[in-house]
Structures are given as C-alpha cells and as structure tokens.
C-alpha cells in the first residue's frame, strides 16, 4: 500500500521479503518484482469504515466514526442482551472478520479511554471499572493522543512519556504550551468531562455494493461476498427496527464488448426476518443452483420489501418440534434448493375423476383451511382410493381374458363407475380393486367401450399402500 509514493503498509509475505514502510515504489519492485502495489484510496477506506459501522448497528444504535479509522460504540445498554462484555467483543470481532477486516478492540467506561486502549493495540484492552481504566491509561504513551504529537520532541525532552506523568504536569502550563485539545482529550479519557458524539443515523433505504477484488465465477466465493453485504443489512435492519421480506442480490458482470445486465437473485421470505443466518442459508442454496454465464466483478444488495420488526413471541413452555417459523424456514430452505415445483402440498379437488381430484400445488401458495375442507368429500371413508396413484395408467396385458400384472388379477370388489368430465377430458371407466396372486391390492379400471370394439381394455391406475 503506497501513500505519496512511500510504502505505508505491507503484507506479511512482503515483510518477510524485506519490504519496509517508507520505501519507494522502485525499491519494492526490485525486492519483489511481482508485488501488488496499490495506491491508498481514502474514499474506499471511508466506505469500508462505513460498512463496518452499518454492521455494528445491530449491537447498539449509538455508533460513530472517530479519528484515525476507529468506531466508537456505546454498548452500555446492550451488554445484558448479548451476554456480557466478553461475548459481545467476540461477536464484534467475528463480524469484523467476516466483513474482511481486522480490528483491535478496546473497551472502557469512557469512549476516549476505549479509543486509547484500542489504539494502543493491547491484547485484551478491556476494562469495565473506572479505577482499573485509570491505572491502565497512566501506563499508555502520551503520543497516542493526536493533539500531543506535534509536541513529541518537547515531551521527550522533559521526560514525559506516559499519561500518568502528563497528568502530574501543571494544567495551566500545559494548556499554554499544547493547547486546549490535549487537555480536553485527557479529561474525557479519565471521565472528568462529559463526551458528546453525533451518532451515525441509518439511511432510509438500504442498498449496499461491494466491488470484488477479482473476477469470480464460483458460487462459494460469491457467498462470502454476499455475507458481508448481509451483515450490513442486519445492522441496518436492527437500527431501523425493520424486518425484511424480500431481498435482491445483484451480480454485476464485467462490461465486455456488449453491456451485460446484472444477474438478479431474488429471495422472498414467507416470514419477515432480520437475522442473517437464515438469509445466508437461503442465498447459499440459491447461488449453488445458479449458473453464471460471465464472471462477476461486483455485488449489490437491496432490501425490497420491509415490515416493522415484530417482537419475538416467546411462549412459556416451548412446543416440541419448534415453532411455525421454524417450519416455514425449513420449507423455504427446501424450496430454495429443490425448486418451488418440487415442494408440494395437497389440495384435493371436488372431482370424480381421480387425476383431477388429486391435485398438488406448491407449498408457498396460500391455501385457506376452509377452501381445502370445502373440496373434501363429506365422508372420505366412502371412497375406496389407493394411496399411490400412478402418474400414467399402465395398460394391462390380457391372459385368459383376465388382466395380468405380474400374476393374474382377481377382482375383489364391486365396480365403481366413474363417468365425468364431458367438458374436458371425459372419462368413462369402471374401477375395481383387484388382488394379485402375491396378495397385493391394485386399483384397476376397465375402459368402457363402444359396441364396435370386442376386447375390453384394462388399465392399472393405483396401488393400495
């Protein structure tokens, strides 16, 4: 990473090769001819910080950007919800890593104190009590504070290295020499003066974009990118107290000879959701099914339909087997992988013809219980129907004037005459329950024929499970 033709940051591999901060571009390329040299882009840094801030909104609505690429969060009200400081820090760290960044965390009773701890990059820079924060701050270097840096030589000259030593200096003299800003910072860090911040306000509509670092045609890698966007969406939804019903993931393709419209993956949810695990699972199945006809260079995520977040409805005694939402989630997941036409629910139709009566519709179609019951026969026991209805009736062989299916079939019931459907696909059939020599029961029918045909034709139409 270069800033004004000087190396600013290096990767581990480059450091091992001898690249040092402050080198020139020529020097770097001499040491590592195939090094990737990037120019520092303040705009992209700001975008990245904003993305992290959006994701952090899920923990507290009070997030603000501070100087030197830091975020300040007031988590005082969120500690109990997320299970204490340790677990909250773990989640924040995991989220930042999922977004593709590394962060050093500081946690303290004052925002400025936390800022200093984080900047000092101490491992486990966490304190919750004021006395221990004072002890820790006293040991930190004065030069961590930005207002102190112009006076670095002077501080070194008088032997004032740590904040503890700085606080022992007389205040009026310090203010005359170093200005008001340093004293304000120290007072804020030690909790002697109140701190005021302008918190980030979540925008009215959500749309996030991510530029991928490479051309990608692998669904797994796309999912990693989509996860970052979903994390931001989660933060935004929590801040606005909304739940999402429909999201659209836009896959932007490289602009080749002809412009190619972005591929849109739309995920519609039966139940509005605001947590990202379920969305990630759905997107994973959808992306696995997707065949890309061109590599993807950018991702965009939009929240299309929003609902106010419903408060979680907890029952005192949880039902075994989960709630209705769990059921809906499972079905959504199945639909995402198998396709809507392969996850079916029964919707029997009031029709005499068995094929028409046995209708199955996609499970996402809303069917009211009344409509379903209205189509059911008053007494289901009265109709002898087989459990398995063959998709296409099988024409049966005739042996000795008997229908034959593996073995000669013996009729075991009275015929049931079904004659209906003159308006579409008329059927005139006599149905029998037949028993084979292996004692399995079959549902067979005889096509009623005109006078001109001599042999009755028999068909197998169902199996009694």
């Amino acid at each position, binding site marked *: 990473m270069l800033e004004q033709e000087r190396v600013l940051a290096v990767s581990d591999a480059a450091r091992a090769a001898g690249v040092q901060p402050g080198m020139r571009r020529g020097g770097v390329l001499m040491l590592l001819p195939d090094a990737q040299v990037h120019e520092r882009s303040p705009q992209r840094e700001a975008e990245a910080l904003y993305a992290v801030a959006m994701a952090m909104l899920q923990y507290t609505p009070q997030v603000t950007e501070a100087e030197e690429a830091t975020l300040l969060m007031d988590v005082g009200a969120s500690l109990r919800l997320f299970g204490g400081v340790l677990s909250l820090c773990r989640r924040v760290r995991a989220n930042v890593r999922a977004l593709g960044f590394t962060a050093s965390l500081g946690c303290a009773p004052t925002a400025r104190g936390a800022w200093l701890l984080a900047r000092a990059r101490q491992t486990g820079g966490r304190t919750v009590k004021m006395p221990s924060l004072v002890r820790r701050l006293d040991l930190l270097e004065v030069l961590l504070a930005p207002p102190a840096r112009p006076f670095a030589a002077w501080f070194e000259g008088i032997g004032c290295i740590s904040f503890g030593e700085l606080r022992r200096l007389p205040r009026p003299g310090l203010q005359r020499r170093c200005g008001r800003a340093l004293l304000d910072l120290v007072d804020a860090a030690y909790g002697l003066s109140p701190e005021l911040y302008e918190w980030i306000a979540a925008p009215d509509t959500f749309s996030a974009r991510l530029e991928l670092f490479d051309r990608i045609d692998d669904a797994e890698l796309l999912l990693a990118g989509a996860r970052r966007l979903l994390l931001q969406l989660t933060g935004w939804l929590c801040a606005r107290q909304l739940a999402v019903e429909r999201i659209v993931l836009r896959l932007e393709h490289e602009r080749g000879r002809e412009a190619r419209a972005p591929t849109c993956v739309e995920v519609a949810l039966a139940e509005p959701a605001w947590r990202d695990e379920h969305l990630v699972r759905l997107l994973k199945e959808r992306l696995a099914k997707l065949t890309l006809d061109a590599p993807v260079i950018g991702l965009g995520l939009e929240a299309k339909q929003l609902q106010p977040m419903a408060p979680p409805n907890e029952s005192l005694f949880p039902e075994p*087997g*989960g*709630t209705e939402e*769990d*059921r809906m*989630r*499972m*079905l959504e*997941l*199945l639909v995402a*992988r*198998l396709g809507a036409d*392969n*996850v*079916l*629910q*029964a*919707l*029997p139709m009031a029709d005499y013809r*068995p094929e028409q009566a*046995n209708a*199955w519709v996609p*499970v996402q179609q809303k*069917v009211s*219980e009344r409509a*379903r019951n209205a189509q*059911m*026969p008053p007494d*289901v*026991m*009265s*109709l*002898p*129907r*087989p*459990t*398995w*209805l*063959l*998709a296409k009736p099988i024409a049966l062989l005739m042996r*000795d*004037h*008997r229908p034959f299916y593996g073995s*000669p079939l*013996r*009729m*075991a*019931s*009275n*015929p049931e005459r079904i004659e209906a459907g003159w308006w579409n696909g008329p059927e005139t059939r006599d149905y029998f*329950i037949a028993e084979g020599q*292996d*004692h*399995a*029961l*079959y549902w067979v029918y005889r096509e009623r024929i005109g006078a001109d045909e001599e042999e009755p034709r028999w068909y197998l139409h*169902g*199996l*009694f*499970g």
Partner: protein
Amino acid sequence: MVCSDSISAAPESLHPSLWRASQLARSSNRCVDTGHAALSAQLPGGGWPTGVLVDLLLQQPGIGEMRLLRSALAEVAARRIVLLQPPHPPQALALAALGVPPSQLIWLRTSRTADALWAAEQVLRSGSCGALLFWQNQVRSDSLRRLHLAAQGGETLFFMMRPLAAGQDASPAPLRLALRPKAGGIEIDFVKRRGPQRDAPLFLPLSSNFTYTHRHAPVDRPVTAPVAARGIQPQLVH
C-alpha cells in the same frame, strides 16, 4: 462372587440400556403406538421409536405399508408429514381416509439422490415435522449413518422405505423390518431389532378402511378354477 451373581441376576435393573438376549430392550426414545397390539408387543419400547432411523424393506410399493403405519401417522399428524420421493404420486384422499389430514402432507420431489439426502437431513434437523417417509433404493451406508445421526437430534418418526434386497447390506438402523403381502394382511420379518432373534414372520391382518366386500355372493373362488374354453369367464362375472 457376590458381585457377578448380582449382575447375572438382573442386568436390566443395573442400567436402562442393558438387556438380556432373550428380552426385548427398553427404548429410551419416545415411542408411537403402532395400533397393532401383536406388532407393538414385538417392538422394543412397544411402538415405533421416534428420533431413530427405522428401515422398512418392501417387496414392492403398494403392499399395505401405509396401512401398517396409519395409526402412527395419524397420531403425529398434528405436525407435518413429509413424503420424500414416493414411488408414485400420493393420493391425498386415500391418506385422509387413513387418518392423515391433507393439510399436513408435504410431498417432496427431487431429481438427484444428493438432493434427496440433503432434503431428508434438513427435515430431520429442523425437527418441526411429525414424520418423514423416505423412499430410496440405493443409499450408501455413510449416508444412512448421517441420516440416523440427524434423526437423533429430534423426535421425528423417520421411516426409510427400501427394497427387500437392501436387507443384505448393513445399516445403522436399530429396527429393520421386511414387509411382504399376504392374504388379508401383511407379513413382517424382523431383520434386526434390539431383542431376541425371531425367525418366524409375524402375520398382521390389515383392515381396509373401506368396504370392498361383495354385496352378492362371490362367484370368484379363492382357488383358481381351471379355465374352461367357452365364452365369458366366470371369474369376470360378479
């Protein structure tokens, strides 16, 4: 030795998962009554165990397997019942007559085995369904083990319907039954159960819920009469 005496006296009193080879094991899972007293008496726990893989080996689809399961399915029908890859389209009216309301039925069709196994695992892991019936001819034993593990996380009744030939292969299922049709019912072979080996098959009469008996005296004899070569067959006349 006093100690060994006491163990040989009552191993089943020491720990719930101990039993003698001559006894039926006690099931630690919740069991759903089979609705057939003769069958329940032969199963550990006195019913179909929930939360484990139960292998049903069928001679062919449509031999009365759904009638065998009807009372268990009716009992768990408060939650959804998933039919995964049935051999033929299921008929909702017939299942309604067996006691399973059509609103609780879900029929999953898959094009690939991997999809079917994935779907079965998702259904079992979610634990929000009452029963899962999964028809699959060829399953590798590691997939079976995976499904068995997934089933143990919940209380779903999980039946795998496989052909009789699959009885030769090893399976992690603690209960494996082979089903063959017989006149007026079904014959059950106990391929594997936690209990004594039973070689004689168990005959279970299955009542059809509909009456298909003749209202008139049957012309048809159970014994196939020699076919006389004249005119219309007596067997076809009712």
